[in-house]
């Protein structure tokens, strides 16, 4: 596994009150994304364990784009990756934020 860590300044804080959310599955070309609340509200940390080595620059671009576009502040995001393409990663990250922002029942 290659392990990557990012700690980025987030322009917007994630909404909602859920303490955690999980989306996706670890399978070939897929990944799981676990989102948890963590302070401070203007930071987003992303820890990645990926089966595909040598793609650090692509991950860097995808997670920076995600934090810039979505409400990722106050989140600690952990990823187990089974070799997903960048578009799949971006989709799962977006789904994850949407899920943690869903109203609680």
């Amino acid at each position, binding site marked *: 596994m290659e392990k990557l860590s990012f700690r980025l300044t987030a322009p917007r804080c994630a909404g909602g009150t859920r303490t955690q959310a*999980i989306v996706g*599955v*670890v*399978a070939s070309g897929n990944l799981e994304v676990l989102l*948890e609340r963590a302070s401070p509200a203007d930071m987003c940390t992303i820890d990645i364990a*990926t*089966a595909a080595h040598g793609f650090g620059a692509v991950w860097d671009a995808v997670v920076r784009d995600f934090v810039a576009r979505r409400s990722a502040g106050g989140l600690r995001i952990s990823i*187990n*990756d089974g070799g997903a393409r960048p578009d799949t990663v971006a989709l799962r990250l977006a789904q994850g934020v949407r899920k943690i922002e869903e109203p609680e*029942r």
Partner: protein
Amino acid sequence: MTTAKADNVSLSWYEASARQRIDAFVDAGSFAELIGPELREMSPHLAIFDLPEQFDDGIVVGRGRLDGVPVLVAAQEGRFMGGAFGEVHGAKLTGLLRAARALHQDVLILFDTGGVRLQEANAGELAIAEIMRAVIEARRAGIHVLGLIGGRAGCYGGGSLIAGTCSRLIVSEQGRISVSGPEVIETNKGIEEFDSRDRALVWRTMGGKHRYLIGGADAFVDDEALAFRQAAIDALKTMRGCDVAVLEAEQKRLERRLQRFGEAADAVEIWQALGIDQPTGIPALPTAAFLRAASNRENADDAR
């Protein structure tokens, strides 16, 4: 009563993830996960092989309500390593079954598994044995353990052995139950014995319809989460329990079944012997017509 309602959304059981199945299956909003992904209880073996891990090790366990009744639920994620049993995956299910005895709550196992994870074979095999023991101990304490089978990975290997110890099994057409999977049989016995790429052969040998017809499953439902839910609610109301009389009756039934169908070379011959009018038409029948055609099926009745 809002507490006893499911999410009223059509959901293919076959297509859904483990978490989607649970959400659609139990009463809306009632599920509380135990040992959730945030605890990161992952396999201690996969890293040795440099294989990716999953935070829940491929199984979701927890408590919820089914038609208002508290139950314990486990759902395997068939897309993570084929839903296979490893050390942690198995321990979560063993623990849930032991909790069922202490809490005196029935258990629902949403199978989706190819069997034991080869990378942790010894731990996985031990887990299967522990789970089977825990199922039997729970059943002897009066707990019902219900198996639901209709996922992508089917219910194979050690998973099918566990299924064999359950009180009742609910299966869809898409579900498959067998100890050895198609590719295992082909590898060991040759393509003349079993062509694993012949999907019609796979389904009429291991699929839900055949298992229902020969008493290998107790209820047959559409590939719908709400159909599985209703069948489970109905089953939990009608089960008998597990004693020597049930097991002896089942042993006799299995001996009779072997005598009756042991010479059959193909499932269609068995369906013919069951007295089904057009046995070759069985795979194409929609659920209602199939259930009518299945009126003379073998019935396992709380053991198999």
